[in-house]
């Protein structure tokens, strides 16, 4: 019977707890890094840590990894692509407005 999906054949609990610990460590790390003077790198490091945390949540908690349907992955990539368009094209305007 096709009742259980692929990712639940072996227990996923160790993975869940490992991701949970990693997310808590990431939170501690980002608070610690914000207290250091890293010059222009403070914001990129904070955003990099946030993106790693978000990726962990999406891959393991939201089951993107091991999703049987490729369409789901396509929707996620499309959402990120359009977000990038929104931010990227807006900044090509604002970042080059030397006259304002």
């Amino acid at each position, binding site marked *: 019977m096709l*009742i259980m999906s692929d990712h639940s054949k072996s227990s996923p609990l160790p993975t869940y707890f490992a991701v949970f610990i990693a997310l808590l460590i990431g939170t501690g790390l*980002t608070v610690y890094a914000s207290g250091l003077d890293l010059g222009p790198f403070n914001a990129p490091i904070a955003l990099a840590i946030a993106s790693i945390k978000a990726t962990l949540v999406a891959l393991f908690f939201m089951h993107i990894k091991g999703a049987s349907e490729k369409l789901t992955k396509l929707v996620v990539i499309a959402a990120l692509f359009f977000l990038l368009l929104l931010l990227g094209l807006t900044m090509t305007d604002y970042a080059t407005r030397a006259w304002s």
Partner: protein
Amino acid sequence: MPDSSTATGLHTEAHNPALLHHFAEPQQQRDAASLGMWVFLATEVMFFGGLFCAYLVYRLKYFGDFGAASKTLNVTLGATNTAVLICSSLTVVLAVWAAQSARRTLLIGSLGITMILGLVFLGIKGVEYNDKFVEHHVPGASFSFEKVPTPGHPGQYADPHHAQLFFSLYFVMTGLHALHMIIGLGIFLWLLIMACKGRFTPEWHTPVEIGGLYWHFVDIIWIYLFPLLYLIDRHP
């Protein structure tokens, strides 16, 4: 109607009762539900994306003023709330796993703890909002942000108008996030009632799965809001 009873008899033999008629197999039914939720979450990405975009534009334009305004937020409470949401995400995956593996007590417990953590988050948020009202940092007629030094520029003070813009974005972004939390609590209350009635089985627990997707998404939004609002220009 003898014909229809024969048809029903054939129907139950050929089909899993948890499987809707228009799907070929349970896996297809589950994939369709989760794909629909992901499409909704993609629209949510664009919804919040507009606010993140506005934040990015004004943060770069009024860099020091945003830094000064951000420094007035309470990092301890913000970090605590981040941890609270991460814990709630763990209880949500435990709930989904419990539903998959027919562990009803764990399912009900996980859903209940998730709701408690969601309420703790909103409570801490309320304390933070109250602090902002007391300090007159809420945009509007009584807004006051006088003589607050700009980080990295000794002797300079932040422009109150630009700082007010930061607090406008702060309240809209965290407020919209809090609204999503409140909706999430409503969804989880419904899931809890359904779980107590024993409606979820390993064959059919789609609401737990896609409700969980929603909750994790709201967690991801906060994962970005926390450093962008609380942690810019923290260093001495």
